[in-house]
């Protein structure tokens, strides 16, 4: 019995030490460690790539001998290496974002086992540097150049006297009707230039349209009010209206108090404008520019007081609300085309034609890309993604 226990115990110890030995064995080291400057950046970054350890069978598997990788860095190939960072098993890339420009670095990758690890050979030397050109944006540059050149071409065409066809935009044809209605009824016109500041292209478009509307109100002697949500917009609107009234030959009708500031707060502004609509009962309301959740509140209140409403925004989420609640809506690009349309200036109309060239380019790529995907031609279709 004692001899049997001794043999049993000895066998057990032998077996456990064998499995223990397997646990202490390091995994195979990763190979082909390469380090190079990360392209298209402002410097300070080096990309390290390697081939996984042959013992690495995937990050999520319990039986994976490799638990992760450690990346080490040194400024000398045979010098002392410090641990830079860690990644999970299965990874083959690491970005060193703490590299100094112009300083040579060497890298090693360590495969981590349960109780041990193995290191790769050092990589070749790499230095971080800043690039002058971001080549990832070359297609953007090309497209922008084509668009710009086509716009300039059509502007020159228009300057030379060529007649350009621009389709009718109902919302803009109704501006004169709206101003005339306000004059007949003796009620005010409210112009709301959105709730964004002058850094938004929609606000600039809105202020430009205001110039054309103000010219009409000067001619018709209608009362115009422009409550604003931003101080800079207030200043810009004042200058625009002053100039418009001056050009219409009615500087006497201009009053600085036509344009006033309410508040920067979204719903504070909405509450104030709604109050103005309900008390003043305007005959016409223009809602042009960048709007968010307050768009429907403003449009519905304008509808409630019986005003004719012409809205325009390039916020796709707000367009359905304006379409539902307003009499006329300028959809997206029509907002940006409005100033050219209303002024009928040949140079500005020419730019609209140039914009259409861009649409044809997009249309071409959409059709070609759709055909490629439909017929599973994947070799060239990556060009259009």
């Amino acid at each position: 019995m004692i001899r049997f226990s001794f043999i049993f115990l000895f066998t057990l110890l032998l077996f456990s030490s064998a499995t223990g030995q397997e646990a202490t064995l390091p995994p195979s080291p990763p190979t082909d460690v390469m380090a190079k400057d990360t392209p298209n950046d402002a410097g300070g970054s080096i990309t390290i790539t390697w081939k996984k350890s042959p013992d690495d069978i995937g990050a999520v598997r319990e039986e994976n001998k490799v638990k992760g990788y450690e990346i080490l860095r040194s400024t000398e190939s045979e010098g002392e290496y410090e641990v830079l960072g860690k990644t999970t098993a299965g990874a083959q890339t690491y970005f060193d974002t703490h590299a100094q420009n112009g300083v040579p670095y060497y890298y090693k990758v360590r495969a981590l086992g349960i109780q041990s690890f193995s290191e790769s050979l050092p990589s070749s030397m790499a230095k971080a540097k800043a690039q002058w050109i971001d080549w990832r944006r070359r297609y953007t540059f090309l497209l922008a150049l084509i668009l710009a050149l086509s716009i300039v071409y059509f502007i020159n065409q228009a300057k030379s006297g060529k007649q350009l066809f621009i389709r009718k935009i109902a919302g803009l044809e109704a501006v004169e009707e709206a101003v005339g209605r306000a004059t007949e009824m003796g009620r005010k016109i409210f112009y709301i230039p959105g709730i964004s500041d002058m850094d938004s292209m929609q606000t600039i478009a809105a202020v430009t349209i205001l110039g054309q509307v103000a010219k009409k109100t000067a001619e018709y002697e209608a009362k115009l009010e422009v409550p604003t949500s931003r101080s800079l917009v207030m200043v810009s609107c004042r200058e625009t209206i002053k100039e418009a009234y001056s050009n219409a030959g009615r500087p006497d009708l201009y009053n600085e108090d036509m344009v006033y500031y309410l508040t920067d707060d979204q719903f504070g502004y909405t509450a104030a404008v709604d109050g103005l609509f309900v008390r003043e009962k305007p005959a016409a309301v223009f809602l042009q520019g960048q709007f968010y959740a307050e768009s429907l509140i403003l449009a519905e209140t304008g509808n409630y007081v019986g005003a004719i409403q012409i809205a325009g925004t390039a916020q796709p989420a707000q367009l359905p609300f304006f379409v539902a609640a307003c009499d006329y809506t300028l959809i997206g690009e029509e907002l940006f085309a409005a100033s050219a349309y209303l002024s009928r200036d040949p140079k500005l109309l020419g730019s609209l034609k140039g914009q259409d060239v861009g649409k044809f380019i997009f249309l071409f790529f959409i059709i070609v890309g759709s055909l490629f995907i439909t017929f599973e031609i994947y070799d060239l279709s990556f060009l259009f993604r």
Partner: protein
Amino acid sequence: MRREVPLAITAIVGFALIIVYFIPHPPFNHSRDFFEDLFFIIAAFAIWLGCLNLLKVNADKVYLKKKGWTFSIVVWFGFFLMVIVGFWEGRGFMNPGTTFYYLYDKLYYPLNATMFSILAFFVASASYRAFRARNKEATILLIAALFVMLGRVPFGYYLSSWLPEGWRLGNITDWIMDFPQTAAQRAIMIGIALGIVSSSLRVLLGLERTFASGE
């Protein structure tokens, strides 16, 4: 000069910012942040203009006893109450427990929420007016809206649960949102992007000058 200087600044800064978009090398990679900070500083100074204008307009209303002049007193009172309390509280004026925070939490926040909640009623009233079968397009809109609204609520599921998978109201809703709605939105967004490019170029070339008190 009054018109030429702003237009020149607009053109130079505008084209410079376009070019630096393609140059990651310092110091160009920080140009956009620099000009954005400049804009915020200018806007912060400009807020004084707005506040003084707000006080002046409301003071005129009270002085001339215009319609609704009592509301102008409320504006003055509210403005100076928050300013005085804010300065009195000092640095941590927005910390919980301060009087400023109390006024913000008990006055401003409920008023803000009230305005936002009005939206729900206005959505209902706008939908009631918009979804009418006046013509062909309006009828299609009405049918699509019906599918989408029913497909998003449990009642729609109960109505169509007996149908095979792929033909239920929820599936039709998803199809409408994923295909025709997405296609239309993307078309609008492409148009908007082109409009912004064209409009920006007009501004940079000085063709569009209205915003800078030009013709």
